[in-house]
């Protein structure tokens, strides 16, 4: 059994947040020149950058799908992103996360429009502080939109967990390492459709239900931020273009 470490004091978490409070989020759209779409996303101390290439010819060819585009998703942690240096390259954890993230987008990307093609999403974790896959999904969602990939909706993602017996939103590393449970969720906020769900640790059915509710609220918040970031980006471009034409 884990020894209890005090993570909640006077109804507040160690970083001063309430139970249902997100860490600060910062979004920048279109940060990379070569990529077809890109996004920089911060969630607390997580710093992640996502790039999208495609739709383009799918390699290897045997991995093509005659009926629809194949989504490739690579979640990768930079060696310097963690306290102990992470050995470069894919490990079992990142292979699993890449699969889960890819599947989180399959319901929204209109893959049937691009048979035999590949849509490639690359997510690089530059600095990590728990909840990296959720930050990666949020970034990738915006990068896909930025790349002009036809999508039915954006995907938003957040983790809920249990610390000191309380169900809380968006665990940081200290809470994740010493907490009782962690449950990352991705959803299409506008339709409340869950596209990714994982849970490790231990919680009751009732706590699971409460966690779901917390995650739903947070995904709606994140959706608004994602949308606002995209609108800002394309309004800017539009205004910039007008200016050039006037000159």
């Amino acid at each position, binding site marked *: 059994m884990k020894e209890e470490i005090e993570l909640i004091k006077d109804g507040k978490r160690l970083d001063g947040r309430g139970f249902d409070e997100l860490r600060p989020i910062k979004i920048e759209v279109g940060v990379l020149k070569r990529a077809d779409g890109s996004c920089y996303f911060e969630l607390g101390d997580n710093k992640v950058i996502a790039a999208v290439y495609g739709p383009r010819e799918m390699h290897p060819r045997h991995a093509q799908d005659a009926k629809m585009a194949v989504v490739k998703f690579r979640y990768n942690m930079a060696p310097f992103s963690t306290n102990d240096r992470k050995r470069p390259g894919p490990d*079992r954890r990142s*292979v699993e996360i890449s699969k889960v993230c890819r599947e989180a987008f399959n319901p929204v990307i209109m893959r049937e429009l691009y048979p035999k093609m590949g849509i490639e999403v690359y997510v690089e974790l530059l600095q990590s502080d728990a909840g990296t896959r959720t930050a990666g999904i949020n970034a990738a969602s915006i990068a896909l939109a930025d790349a002009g990939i036809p999508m039915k909706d954006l995907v938003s993602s957040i983790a809920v967990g249990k610390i000191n017996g309380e169900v809380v939103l968006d665990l940081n590393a200290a809470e994740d390492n010493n907490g009782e449970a962690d449950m990352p969720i991705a959803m299409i906020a506008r339709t409340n459709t*869950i596209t990714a769900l994982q849970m*490790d640790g231990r919680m009751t059915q009732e706590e699971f239900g409460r966690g*779901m509710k917390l995650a739903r609220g947070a995904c709606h918040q994140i959706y608004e931020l994602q949308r606002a970031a995209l609108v800002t980006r394309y309004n800017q471009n539009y205004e910039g273009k007008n200016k050039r034409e006037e000159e």
Partner: protein
Amino acid sequence: MGLEIVNDVRTDYVCDLVKNGKREDGRGFREYRDISVERDVIKRAEGSARVKIGDTEVLVGVKVELGTPFPDTPDKGVIITNTELVPLASPKFESGPPNENSIQLARVVDRGIRGSETIDLDKLCIEKGEKVWMVFIDIHVLDDNGNLVDAAALGAIASLLNLRIPNERYGLTGENTLPMRDTPVAVTTVEIEGNILVDPSFDEGNAAASSVTVISNADGTLSGMQKSGSGGLKEAQIAEMVEIGIEKAGEIRKKYL
């Protein structure tokens, strides 16, 4: 290509059946296939079990060896879970390094055991920072006829329940048994045409847009969950899957563990 077309036909067939409230093997939507669990089938392993769910067959062997602990947990034993989807089990499996499916399978089983704290890792420590017991759970899939996760998880916990610590082999004295503190059981449900089906057959697994594995313990708490597949699910559907998961896990635990 040939196989793909066959898959499409099978998928259409399964979906049509489900729309009419039926399954290809005649089961109800909430009916699990027959299970058999045979323990201690491998003499050389410290724990082992052969699990059958319908025609799906998985062999789990647990080896226990002395090793050095991880630097960040010097006073805890080690559990390592691994899966081999050997080519004899399915025309779809190929030899070679583990792919994402086998990695996910192993990690979900591992998560269930870890989350429930079934094994007291402190009790596996012999000398802090130097010597600990390392428990290797190896999942060997023999026949893939759907729902490998549940079979693998059941095989793992069944093997662990009568694990023998090989003290003599290392000239040690001590307890040869390891008290298990819980019995996590995995139950997988899939969503097909808006219906929730428990224990998917091979074709149902392929036809399903999403599947969710729910791992729960004797007291009904959850100790692991994983959604897989390219579909989306509503909250109410997931709540139903959790409900079914806990209920079926209770039945399986009572009968086979």
